[in-house]
């Protein structure tokens, strides 16, 4: 086909932008004119430009500058629990187990996210204050003072700033450890059991076991801060029960032998131990002595009947030490001891050892047997 450009080489092309520009030059047919109109209606020039522009601009890429928040990884020093024990780790082992259970319940495990610094008085309670001071001088997050009023008081005297969690049998208010159970105030809180308060119940139980006797011996540790109040309670109870008491004192192991001998000398029906950690941690020893001497005895701790003693009535140390662990954990988490009310372990448990009873020729009345939490046969 012959094209215009072939025909008209070199001639400048007319730069017409509108069809109408050549509509008068070329004879457009009717439909060509119509088509032109259609185009003018349908194809606004800006159309192509707009789309073109949009294409050029493209989509706005939203590049969110991801602010990399780098949390400075401070080497978190492991919190340290200072554990003040009045005895040796061996004697504390069951309590330590309960304590670690409670700590674990709060999410702490020794060596994993908490360190425990131990101080052991090895039964020499006079050493407790200096050990407590020693502990307080190291970097502690919390001091745990389980095992009686002596430990709690020693810890209290050592620091007024480091939070202290105590565990004891007596009334913390009466012993001057805290001012209030609900709002302990200061840097102390802890767990108390009802062991001290129930020493009179031990006398009552002993009387039931030995109904024919009016004289009973009572073992007191004069070194204990609770001894005076317990002795008073026991005397009141003895009066109301119509009994006579022989008070025997022992604050060291060598005195135990003499104490058991004195029971026989006094012709007492049995030996009722007041609540005292020193006695409690020597339950095995006491049980052995009691069976050797043939003395019916009752102490505060289940350890005693479990070791062959006759019976026990007192607070559940497993619970109290467990709660101590829980509280230590809560303080590690940042709670203030003043906001943690002193917890009282209300559970009081009666343990009876029937083997010991038969060795002593004792028949337990059914009222006791039915009340017992555990009967060892």
């Amino acid at each position, binding site marked *: 086909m012959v094209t215009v450009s072939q025909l008209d080489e070199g001639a400048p*092309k007319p730069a017409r932008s509108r069809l109408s520009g050549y509509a008068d030059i070329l004879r457009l047919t009717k439909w060509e004119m119509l088509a032109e109109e259609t185009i003018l209606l349908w194809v606004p020039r800006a159309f192509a430009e*707009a789309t073109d522009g949009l294409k050029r601009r493209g989509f706005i890429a939203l590049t969110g500058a991801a602010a990399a928040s780098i949390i400075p990884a401070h080497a978190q020093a492991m919190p340290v629990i200072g554990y003040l024990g009045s005895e040796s780790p061996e004697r504390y082992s069951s309590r330590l187990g309960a304590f670690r259970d409670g700590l674990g319940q709060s999410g702490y495990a020794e060596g994993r996210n908490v360190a425990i610094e131990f101080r052991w008085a090895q039964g020499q309670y006079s050493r407790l204050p200096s050990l407590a001071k020693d502990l307080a001088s190291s970097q502690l997050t919390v001091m745990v003072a389980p095992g009686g009023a002596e430990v709690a008081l020693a810890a209290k005297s050592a620091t007024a700033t480091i939070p202290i969690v105590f565990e004891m049998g007596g009334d913390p208010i009466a012993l001057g450890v805290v001012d209030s159970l*609900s709002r302990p105030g200061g840097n102390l809180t802890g767990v108390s059991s009802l062991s001290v308060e129930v020493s009179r119940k031990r006398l009552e139980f002993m009387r039931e076991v030995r109904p024919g006797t009016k004289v009973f011996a009572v073992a007191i540790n004069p070194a204990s801060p609770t001894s005076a109040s317990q002795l008073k309670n026991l005397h009141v109870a003895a009066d109301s029960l119509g009994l006579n008491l022989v008070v025997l004192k022992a604050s060291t192991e060598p005195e135990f032998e003499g104490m058991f001998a004195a029971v026989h000398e006094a012709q007492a029906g049995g030996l009722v131990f007041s609540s005292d950690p020193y006695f409690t941690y020597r339950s095995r020893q006491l049980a052995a002595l009691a069976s050797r001497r043939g003395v019916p005895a009752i102490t505060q701790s289940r350890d005693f009947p479990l070791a062959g003693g006759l019976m026990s009535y007192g607070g559940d140390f497993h619970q109290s030490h467990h709660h101590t662990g829980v509280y230590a954990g809560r303080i590690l988490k940042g709670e203030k001891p003043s906001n943690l009310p002193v917890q009282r372990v209300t559970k009081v448990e009666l343990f009876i050892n029937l083997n010991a009873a038969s060795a002593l020729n004792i028949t337990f009345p059914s009222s006791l047997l039915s009340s017992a939490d555990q009967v060892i046969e």
Partner: protein
Amino acid sequence: MSNTAPRSSLFIRYFSTLFAAAVIPLLIAGGSDAWFGYHDQRARLNDVLDAEARLAAEKIGDFIDGIRDQLAWTVQLPWSDNPGDRRRLDALRLLRQAPAVESLSLVDAKGKERLFVSRIGLNRIEGGDDHSTKPAVRGALSDRTWFGPVTFQDGSEPFMTIAIAGTRAAAGVAVAEVNLKFIWEVVSGIRVGRTGEAFVLDRPGRLVAHPDIGLVLQADEAAQKPLQILRAAILTRSGQAAAGQDIAGNMVMAAMAPIPGLDWSVIVTQPLAEAFGPIYTALRRTGVLLIAGAALAAILAYWMTQRMVGPIRVLEDGVAQIGAGQFEHRINLATSDEFERLATRFNEMATELSVSQERSERINRLKRFLAPQVAELIERSGDDRVLDGRRVEVVAVFCDLRGFTAFSVRAEPETVIRVLREYYDALETVVSDHGATLINFYGDGAMILVNAPVSCVDPALRAVNMASDMQKSMQSLLAGWRALDDRLGFGVGLAMGLATVGRIGSQGRLHYTAIGNAVNLASRLCSSAEDSEILIDRAAASAVGSSIPLIELDPRTLKGFDQPVPVFAVTTGRAARTEI
């Protein structure tokens, strides 16, 4: 591109329309979904919390009922003067069975304490104290069961006295001190949702039981204020869960249920974040779906708009190019729709335009080189193939002015040019009237072809008539010119015969002409003709026949012809002149 582009564009219009068409229903659906979802979830939350509260109340009620049932055992039989050991064993067994009971006193019908057993204190048998005026005993005797107010031992541990009277007055009353701390075991076991909890408030709004036993033991009424506010908030919306703050100040949803028999309220709470977690999750999901839907709609709308606008752009570009004269441009659209049809139309139009343009160009070009009459002829016929070379029988007509050369020497150039222009005009008019083709002017002469390039009927007759008209026309002109020069005259010669006709020429010039004996003869006849004379050869004369009267003159010896040529003359010309 033009910068007078309209600001609004189809792209934006179509895009927004399509986008809106997709997004608005999506928004409506998403919005209503979120709205109804919220209300459903809110209603469900109400139901769940309400059920949890009632369940918790039932559990705590069961706890209290358990103690009450235990106590009821101890007041089944009437008191005798000597009750024996059985009562004591029952009482001790109760302490064993119900650990929350710290102490129990049994009072006979007269209100005397007959038995007291305790976990802490010493047991008493036949204590004999008069308890008949104590509210517990009086309450139990009148209502069978009596619940004392909650007291906090040592300001910490919650205790409550429960007294229960036997079915018969003679059975007396059992009064138990209950350590409410034991409800903790019940309350701490209640889980509302994942992290929700339950707690118990007594009638004045003191915390009796809470999963965090420390809060109870603190017995701090000021700290428990939020819980009382929460309870009040629930009470204002009967049966509905209410939002409020718990003791730690966290926002919670809470519902409440009373404990039957006790004026206690069990409140279950669930952190707002957890309670509305499913709603938020649903809202987030809806939001993400909306965003995704909107994005998809945008992409689709963009795509659709592109599909719509793309072809229009191609069309526009194409039309612009065609408009700019590029008729070879073709709009390539394969959209199988109206656009493709439109593009096809445009392409057809471009083809037509191209053909028109080409034709016009060629004619313009021809016009430049050919005699205007020929060019016009071709333009009229629209086909220049008539100019192609061929052998055809033509009538060649030659004419010229007599005495013009002498006149042109004498006369002023303006006069010469004017005379020539009038002469040409007159000739052209006549030639044009007769449909003949004026091949060329040369000086005072002209060559005219009849039957070529456009063939006609009876060319000889037509040629003779034309010649006559030419003479007529010229003679009248000459009459006007006599004043200038009376020696001017006009002669015509025509001959008929086969001749080769066609375009001849070089790159720069183009001629349409005829070559043949008839052409030569006509030219010679014209030279031989005198003023107002029309000389015709034998072929033309015989072709004319008797239509026009002709006079046969003596054969003449013409240049280039060996033999004398027979010559005819049209009488009219001379007659006309004679008349003038």
